[in-house]
Each structure stands twice: as structure tokens, then as C-alpha cells.
């Protein structure tokens, strides 16, 4: 061990590592010293250190190597040296022997577990729990229970922390220890209390009452360590969350405790309490104030961790209560220049949420200086925040758009550039005034854009929006430059964009033809093909032109066919005399993307996709339904509901239903999934019994031919109903099908099948199905403009209700309308409330509703309902819904 030779010169010493040139094979050789009859403890410790070093570097041992080392290590239990024994405990844990090897050490460890030396006990417990399995655990359970209440805190902690780990693998055993753990919670040793509290909560987490009792007793008693106090605060807020539903009168339970914790001496406790208060459901500004005050103090702390924690919490508060945070704005502004970029970014995004319109320019100036020296991932966060700010203050679009275009010109990776481009596109869509300048910024960007994807997306967007501007010709130069300068993919996109300008702007047509003709000599075949195609469709080659509408449909319309289906059909197409017929491509959506799209809650991608998510879902439904001949005559689709589950989770067949409402018809779309790999379902239908829905008559059924494992499919049932009547009813559903066995190894189904059926939950058509949730930005203006002509006002008693907010939500759900201006939130403890709703009723009639609620001491709720609409009968219909 030459490395250990002491060097006189300090600098020399720095150069040598005791592990210089360490090599696994050599260390494993060295490990043979463990087998020496005369053990050299010092030497053994050094070898274990080397083994640890190897393991900590991410080195792994093969099964044979690990077994060999493990067996040698077990011999060291004979050594009397205490330091060595401690190392042995550690290395056994690190080697984590397999279950068949463990037996070698269990007796030694069991002996240590009953040793008189406390720390032997603690370590033996930890090692045993690390390597043990269920059977061994039952043998040592008795000792572990004793250890939990051991008077030595080290032993108790070891047993408790082991318990926390074992709860994952052997919950039924650990749950039997709750009496001992309960006793340990009262321990005078701070850490024992902390560990015991954590374990006890985990044992009882599913028993609300027990957790509530635990919290009640501990919030009154003494909690010794700040760590335990933090846990208690977390459990308390959990109890508050769960109890607030049932307790709406008087003070919020435990708030005083949380507020008291704001004055605790440990910073982590103060923070935990502040955070818990800010996250309370429906927190009032009075409740928030003390928490915000302490957080504000921490903003100017000298410790980065505290500043970070404070600004992170305030950032969250700003999302829901921006006004509450404005007091901290000055402190937050000084954090923009914080050394720590995470803190600076959080400060900026918070300020962007809380700032007022007049401060925007100043803020942007500060951000500009800051942007140059942060990493891309932070920049993306800032860009997103700026986009939201711009949508909030549309009048400020000029400076915000300028900012975005400036950062677009600077260096940056793909994700960052994409975030900026997406933001500009969204601003162009939502703020009409910003359109022309935004498009020009994008044009300038593609002049020098290194990302093919972004260039093609922008070109596509330009093709849609450019022709509608006041002077479309100014974009042509930028687009044609792409044809000259870029790669084939971008050139092809540019050709398509040019064609769109040609189709939309007649005055530009001749010039576009000239440009397109030049593209006929491009060296890429796709570019040439596109140019030829567009010249042909637009009539640029002198041929007879299709009608203007056909051309526009062709250029701007979608294919109306799922791309996956088209791809499969094209792959299956064999080149013959007969040309490929696009109408032969099935239009059915195979993998049922609609419901998933909704549930994923993905942000709509800015480019290419149609703007808001909900309409796009409806569009997709409409396209799907109109592609089915039986339903094509039903007229325009009024509304499609969200999917309603008709089966419990994790059953053999998962079915949900989407209700499509037409003027005279209702279509149930049953989305079915077969979750059994050994089955193939065929001729799947839902048999609907409409005896409890008198006004509905079944007119058509569209069965699903085949439903293989894990590939969702749809079947439909259509009903006729009287026109203009908001008919309601209940429908019982039975799934019927032919089931065929599938051999899982080959995936082939048997020839013969068996008829079978499966009971589903009932579905319902309710009044809310005839209402579209459409909000208005200014309710007062909308109310005034509708006028009092068809206003209907009446009063209703809603009887005793759980709470005012429950009553408000019930009425909102009953009517299925969109709450406006945040009036769906009822302030805690308030005795009256006004809620504003807006919607569009079937027949495209605009409806506004003003609800005034009052509650008396016996929780009787009274409601005044005022309806204004464009049609008298609709106003009456709304009252009827409530009256029934």
C-alpha cells in the first residue's frame, strides 16, 4: 500500500489518492484476508473501505463475486474489534445478499440483536431488516416490537425506520406494531418521536378518524423536533382538507395551530405552516395575510434556500391569489438579479403574474437584461409566463411581442425557439391587432432559422393567415426565399404556402404562377411534384380549372380520414393498373383517440392544430358521425358530452358513453375496450332499453364488427326525439357480443364463438345535455345587451343543504352552464352568494342566468333565479328545469 506512505511535502500529498489505480479484481483478491485464521482488523477495515469505494463509484459485482465476498465477510463476526464490526454491518447491507445466502448471518445478527451493547442491537436490526424476508420477519417480530419502545433512542429509531421500510413489503406485520409505535410517539427523544410519527401515520393513513385523532392530540401536546413538527403540519392540513367538506360554519379547524406555527423558532416549521395555509381550500385573504407576511421576510434572507422556498411558495399563491402577493413585489424585483437562477426565474414569473398593466414595460426592461445569462429551460418558463401576461393585458402586445421577437433572434436551442414561436402564434390568434407584426417577426425568423421543423410549421401557418392580411404580397418574398435557399423539406412547404396565397388572393395569382413554374425545375422530386400539382389545380398551366371552392377545399381542407388508416391502406396498396382510391380508406377511428385526448388535458399545440381544444374535439366527433351513413342526415351536431364511464375500473370490458345531441336526434357513442388478452369479441352491440325514456324512439344501431384485446372500438345507437323539446330519460344498457377464444402464443382466434352479454350501468339524458358551456368575458355588458324582454324571475326553496357552496354547485351542474367571473367560488362562512352563468341552449339560443342564494341558520337555502335569453320559451324552459 504505497499510497499510504506519508509524504513530507504537502503538495505531493494532494496528488496521491489512497484509491489510485484501484481495480476490482485486485480488491477481491485482497478480500481473502477475511479468511485468515489470525485476523488483522486494520487490514480488514481497509479492504472493506476499498470495497465500499468501488460500490459507491457505481461498480457492480457479479453474483459469484458478491457471494464470495459475502461469505468471507461473515467470518469477521468473530473479530472483537469494534470499528471493524461497524464496517461489517455496513458492507453486508451494501452487498445485499440473496435470500438463500442470508441464512449464514442471521444467527450472528440475531445474537447481536439481543446483545447487551445497545448499538450492536441497533445495527443488527437495521441489517436484518434490510436483508430479511417475510418468514424471517415473523421470527424476529417480537424483538422488533421491544426495540421500538427501547429506552435507548438509537435502538428505537433503528427499529422505527426499519418499520417504515418494511411497511412497503410486509404491511400486515408492521400494522400489528401500532400500539408500540403509539407509545414511541410520546417519547422524550426528539428523533424517536419524529420517526414514530411518520410510521404511525403511514400505518393509519387510510383511517381518517384515527389520523384526525392523532392530529388533535399532538397539536395540543408537545412535539420536540422541528422535523416532527413539519410532519404534523402536513398531516394537519390533510385533516383540514378532508373535514372542510363537512364543516362550513364557524372557524376553520386547526387554523389557529397553523398560525401559531408561524411563530416557531425553526425556519422549516415556519415555512411548512405558511405553505399549509396558502394551500388551504378556499383560503380567505384574512387567513393568508400572516403567512404572506412571514414569506415576505424570507425573501430578503441571506440564505438562498430560504429565498428559494419563499419565492417558490409565493409563486404558487400568485396563481390563485395574485392580489395577495402584490405587497411582496418590491422584494421580489430585487430577486431578479439573484445569483441563483432558479430564484430569479421564480421571482420573474411571479411578478409577471402579479404585476399590473402599468408596470409591464419596466418589468420587461429588467427581464431583458436577465435573459442573456440563464439556461434555456429557465428561458422557456419565462416565455410561457410572458405569453400569459400578454393574453391578460392585450393592449400591451406591442412591447411583449417585441420582446419575443428580440429573443427569437438570439442564440438558443430547439425547445426554446419552439416555445417562442408557439407563443407568437397564440398571440396572433388571440389578439387580432398583433397579427401583422407577429407574422412579420416570424418571416424574419425563417430567414435565418436552423430548424427545419420550425420553418415548415411557420410556412404552414403563414399560408393560413398571410392571405387574410391587408397586404399579402409582402410575405411572398420571404416565402420564395425559402425555395431558393433551403433544404428540400422546407422548399416543399414553401411551394404549398405559395399555392395557398395564389388560391386566396386573385391579384397575386399571375405572380404566384411565375414562381411556381420556376419550381418545376427543382432537383427534388417532391418539390417538383407539388409545384406541378398546384399549377394544375390553380389553372396556372392553362388547363381548365376546378371551381374556386374545390380548390380551396383541396388546399385548406383536411383529408377527413384518420392518417393511420390512410397509411395502412397505402401500405396495402399493390401497384396495379387500378389507381389508388382514397374513398376506399376506412373513416372509422380505430384507436379511439377522442376520450383520451380529453383526459390528457394537453395544451393545444400552437402550430398547425386548430385553436381551442374543446371545439377540436367536437369537430372530430362531428366528422366521425357524419362519416357514418346512418347518422349523416341528422344535421349539425349541437353538443357532445364528456365520456361517462358505464363500467367500474379494471373490469373485463371497459365501456364509456359519449352523448351526441342533435336537433331531433340523440346518438350514444359507446367506446369499448376489451381487457382480456385471451378473447376476441365480434358483432359487439349495446342493447338499450328506453322504457324509462318515453319520448325517445330507437332509429339506428351501428355494431362494432370486431373488438380485439386492448384496441378500443366504438358502437353507436341513435334515437329520435321531438324537435325543440329538451326530452330527458334514463336508458339501461347491455353489452352483447360473440366471444372467441384467442391462443395467446399465436394470437389466432378460434373459428367458433359463444354469444354472451355483459350488464352496463344506466345512462341518462338530462337537461344539462341541451346546454353548451359558453362563457362571456363581461357578464354585465352581456346581460344589459340581452335586455329584459324575455327575462323570467322566480324564487325557489332548495331545502336544507350541506353548505351554501354545495347548493351553488348543485344548481350549476343541474343547468350545465358556464360560471362567469369566478362566481362559482363561495367565500367561506358567507351567508349569501350571487352566481353568474352563461350558455347556449339547443337551437343556438344564448342564455344568461343570475342566481342569488341565501342561507339561514338552519341551513335552509333559498334561491332567486333570473334568466335572460333570446327566446321566451327558453327562459321558461330553464325555470322548468329548476322547478322539476
Amino acid at each position, binding site marked *: 500500500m504505497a499510497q499510504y506512505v506519508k509524504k513530507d511535502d504537502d503538495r505531493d500529498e*494532494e496528488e*496521491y*489518492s*489512497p*484509491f489510485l489505480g484501484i481495480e476490482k479484481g485486485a480488491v477481491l483478491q485482497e478480500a481473502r484476508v477475511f479468511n485468515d485464521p489470525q485476523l488483522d482488523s486494520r487490514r480488514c*477495515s*481497509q479492504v*472493506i*473501505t476499498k470495497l*465500499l*469505494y468501488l460500490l*459507491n*463509484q*457505481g461498480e457492480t459485482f457479479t453474483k459469484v463475486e458478491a457471494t464470495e465476498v459475502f461469505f468471507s465477510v461473515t467470518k469477521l463476526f468473530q473479530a472483537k474489534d*469494534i*470499528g471493524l*464490526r*461497524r*464496517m461489517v454491518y*455496513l458492507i453486508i*447491507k451494501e452487498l445485499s445478499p440473496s435470500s438463500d445466502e442470508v441464512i449464514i448471518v442471521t444467527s450472528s445478527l440475531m445474537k447481536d440483536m439481543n446483545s447487551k*451493547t*445497545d*448499538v*450492536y442491537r*441497533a*445495527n443488527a436490526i*437495521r441489517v436484518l431488516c*434490510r436483508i430479511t424476508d417475510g418468514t424471517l420477519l415473523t421470527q424476529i417480530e417480537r424483538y422488533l416490537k421491544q426495540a421500538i419502545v427501547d*429506552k*435507548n*433512542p*438509537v435502538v428505537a*429509531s*433503528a427499529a422505527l*425506520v426499519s418499520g*417504515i*421500510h418494511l411497511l412497503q413489503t410486509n404491511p400486515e406485520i408492521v400494522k400489528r406494531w401500532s400500539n408500540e409505535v403509539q407509545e414511541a410517539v410520546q417519547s422524550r427523544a426528539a*428523533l424517536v418521536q419524529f*420517526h414514530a410519527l*411518520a410510521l404511525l401515520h403511514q400505518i393509519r393513513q387510510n383511517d381518517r378518524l384515527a389520523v384526525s385523532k392523532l392530529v388533535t392530540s399532538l397539536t395540543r401536546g408537545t412535539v420536540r423536533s*422541528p*422535523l416532527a413538527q*413539519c*410532519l404534523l403540519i*402536513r398531516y394537519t392540513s390533510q385533516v383540514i382538507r378532508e373535514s372542510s367538506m363537512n364543516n362550513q360554519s364557524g372557524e376553520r379547524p386547526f387554523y389557529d395551530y397553523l398560525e401559531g406555527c408561524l411563530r416557531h423558532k425553526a*425556519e*422549516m416549521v415556519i*415555512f*411548512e405552516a405558511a405553505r399549509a395555509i396558502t394551500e388551504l381550500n378556499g383560503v380567505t385573504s384574512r387567513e393568508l395575510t400572516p403567512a404572506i407576511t412571514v414569506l415576505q421576510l424570507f425573501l430578503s434572507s441571506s*440564505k*438562498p*434556500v430560504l429565498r*428559494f*422556498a419563499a419565492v*417558490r411558495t409565493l409563486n404558487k399563491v400568485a396563481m390563485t391569489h395574485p392580489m395577495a402577493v402584490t405587497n411582496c413585489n418590491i422584494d421580489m424585483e430585487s430577486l431578479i438579479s439573484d445569483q*441563483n437562477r*432558479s*430564484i430569479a426565474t421564480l421571482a420573474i414569473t411571479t411578478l409577471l403574474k402579479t404585476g399590473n398593466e402599468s408596470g409591464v414595460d419596466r418589468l420587461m426592461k429588467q427581464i431583458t437584461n436577465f435573459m442573456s445569462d440563464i*439556461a434555456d429551460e429557465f428561458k422557456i418558463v419565462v416565455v410561457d409566463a410572458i405569453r400569459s401576461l400578454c393574453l391578460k393585458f392585450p393592449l400591451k402586445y406591442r412591447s411583449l411581442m417585441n420582446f419575443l421577437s428580440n429573443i427569437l433572434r438570439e442564440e438558443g436551442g430547439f425547445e426554446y425557439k419552439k416555445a417562442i414561436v408557439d407563443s407568437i402564434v397564440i398571440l396572433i390568434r388571440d389578439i387580432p391587432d398583433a397579427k401583422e407584426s407577429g407574422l412579420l417577426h416570424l418571416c424574419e425568423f425563417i430567414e435565418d432559422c436552423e430548424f427545419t421543423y420550425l420553418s415548415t410549421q411557420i410556412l404552414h401557418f403563414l399560408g393560413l393567415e398571410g392571405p387574410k392580411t391587408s397586404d399579402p404580397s409582402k410575405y411572398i418574398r420571404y416565402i420564395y426565399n425559402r425555395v431558393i435557399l433551403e433544404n428540400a423539406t422546407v422548399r416543399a412547404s414553401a411551394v404549398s404556402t405559395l399555392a395557398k396565397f395564389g388560391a386566396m388572393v386573385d391579384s397575386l395569382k399571375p405572380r404566384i404562377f411565375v414562381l411556381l413554374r420556376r419550381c418545376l425545375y427543382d432537383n427534388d422530386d417532391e418539390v417538383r411534384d407539388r409545384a406541378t400539382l398546384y399549377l394544375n389545380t390553380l389553372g396556372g398551366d392553362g388547363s381548365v380549372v376546378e371551381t374556386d371552392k374545390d380548390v380551396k377545399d383541396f388546399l385548406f381542407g383536411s383529408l377527413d380520414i384518420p392518417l393511420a388508416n390512410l397509411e395502412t391502406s397505402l401500405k396495402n396498396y399493390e401497384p396495379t393498373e387500378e389507381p389508388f382510391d382514397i374513398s376506399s380508406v376506412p373513416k372509422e377511428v380505430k384507436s379511439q383517440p377522442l376520450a383520451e385526448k380529453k383526459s390528457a388535458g394537453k395544451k393545444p399545440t400552437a402550430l398547425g392544430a386548430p385553436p381551442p381544444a374543446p371545439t377540436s374535439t367536437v369537430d372530430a366527433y362531428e366528422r366521425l358521425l357524419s362519416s357514418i351513413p346512418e347518422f349523416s342526415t341528422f344535421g349539425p351536431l349541437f353538443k357532445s358530452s364528456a365520456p361517462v364511464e358505464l363500467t367500474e375500473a379494471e373490469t373485463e370490458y371497459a365501456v364509456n358513453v359519449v352523448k351526441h345531441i342533435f336537433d331531433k336526434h340523440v346518438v350514444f357513442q359507446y367506446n369499448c375496450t376489451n381487457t382480456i388478452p385471451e378473447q376476441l369479441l365480434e358483432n359487439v352491440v349495446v342493447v338499450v332499453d328506453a322504457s324509462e325514456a318515453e319520448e325517445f324512439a330507437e332509429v339506428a344501431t351501428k355494431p362494432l364488427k370486431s373488438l380485439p384485446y386492448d384496441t378500443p372500438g366504438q358502437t353507436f345507437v341513435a334515437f329520435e326525439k321531438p324537435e325543440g323539446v329538451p326530452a330527458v330519460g334514463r336508458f339501461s344498457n347491455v353489452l352483447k357480443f360473440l366471444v372467441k377464444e384467442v391462443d395467446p402464443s399465436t394470437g389466432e382466434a378460434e373459428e367458433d364463438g359463444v354469444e354472451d352479454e355483459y350488464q352496463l350501468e344506466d345512462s341518462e339524458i338530462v337537461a344539462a345535455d341541451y346546454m353548451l358551456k359558453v362563457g362571456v368575458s363581461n357578464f354585465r355588458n352581456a346581460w344589459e345587451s340581452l335586455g329584459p324582454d324575455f327575462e323570467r324571475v322566480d324564487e325557489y326553496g332548495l331545502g336544507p343543504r350541506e353548505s351554501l357552496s354545495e347548493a351553488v354547485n348543485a344548481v350549476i351542474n343541474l343547468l350545465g352552464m358556464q360560471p362567469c367571473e369566478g362566481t362559482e367560488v363561495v367565500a367561506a362562512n358567507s351567508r349569501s352568494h350571487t352566481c353568474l352563468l352563461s350558455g347556449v341552449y339547443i337551437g343556438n339560443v344564448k342564455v344568461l342566468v343570475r342566481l342569488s342564494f341565501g342561507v339561514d341558520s338552519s341551513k335552509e337555502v333559498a334561491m332567486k333565479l333570473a334568466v335572460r335569453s333570446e327566446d321566451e320559451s327558453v327562459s321558461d324552459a330553464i325555470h322548468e328545469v329548476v322547478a322539476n
Partner: protein
Amino acid sequence: MLLAVLIANSEGNILVERFNGVPGEERLHWRSFLVKLGADNLRGVKNEELLVACHKSVYIVYTVLGGVSIYLVGKDEYDELALSEAIFVVTSAIKDVCGKPPTERLFLDKYGRICLCLDEIVWKGLLENTDKDRIKRLIRLKPPTEF
């Protein structure tokens, strides 16, 4: 869960790496992420001055101690404040073992002891002991004094 304790030298070479509940394939990613984080931010930072970062719902608290940099990664209940508590225990235990903020060499000389300390402080992702005097006794298998 305390997802990782990582100690590196000033060049970013790993000295100690202990992961808990982090899948094997993600460890390399974490290692390079943390080392880069340190290289970007730790230059000129004073001993034991804590730096903080977050990545989605995961928090990172890190610092410099002599010739080594120390990183703690946590999620859920181990947020930035709990991590700063834990890193304080780690730094004070290392200082205690080494007698001063260690050079890399000194750290490696005391490697075995330091591993024992870490074993007492973090056990499979949970904070177990927080008092440096107690830890000092425990790694010598001596009972704590204060009870």
C-alpha cells in the same frame, strides 16, 4: 424520499454516490446533471453556502466543503428545507471526521469513516440521525451520551 447523496471532487469526479429509489438507468443522467449543475454554479461559492435548484417536483440542495462538493436530491417531504437540514448534518459530520473542511485527499483518507457517517444519517432514503456528536459515537459503536 431522499433520492440521492452524491459527493464529487472539484473536477466533477464522483467520490460517493448513493441512490435510493432511483432506477439504474436514470442514475447516470442524474450524475451528469448534478456535476454540470455544480460546474455551472459552485465556482467561488463559500464553504457550506447552500445552493438550491428544482427540476419538476424534485429538489436539489448542494454546497462546497473544502475540496469536495456535496449534492442532495429529494422529493415529496424532502423538499428544499428538509434537504438543507440533511445537508447540514452531512457537512458537519464530514468536518467532524476530517477535523476541518477536507481536501479531496483527506476525504479519501477518511473514506471508510465517512461512509459510516452517511450510513447513520441516511438510511435507504430516510433521514435517521441528525446530531453530529451522536453520529460520531455511533460510528465507533459507542452508545449516545444524552439519554
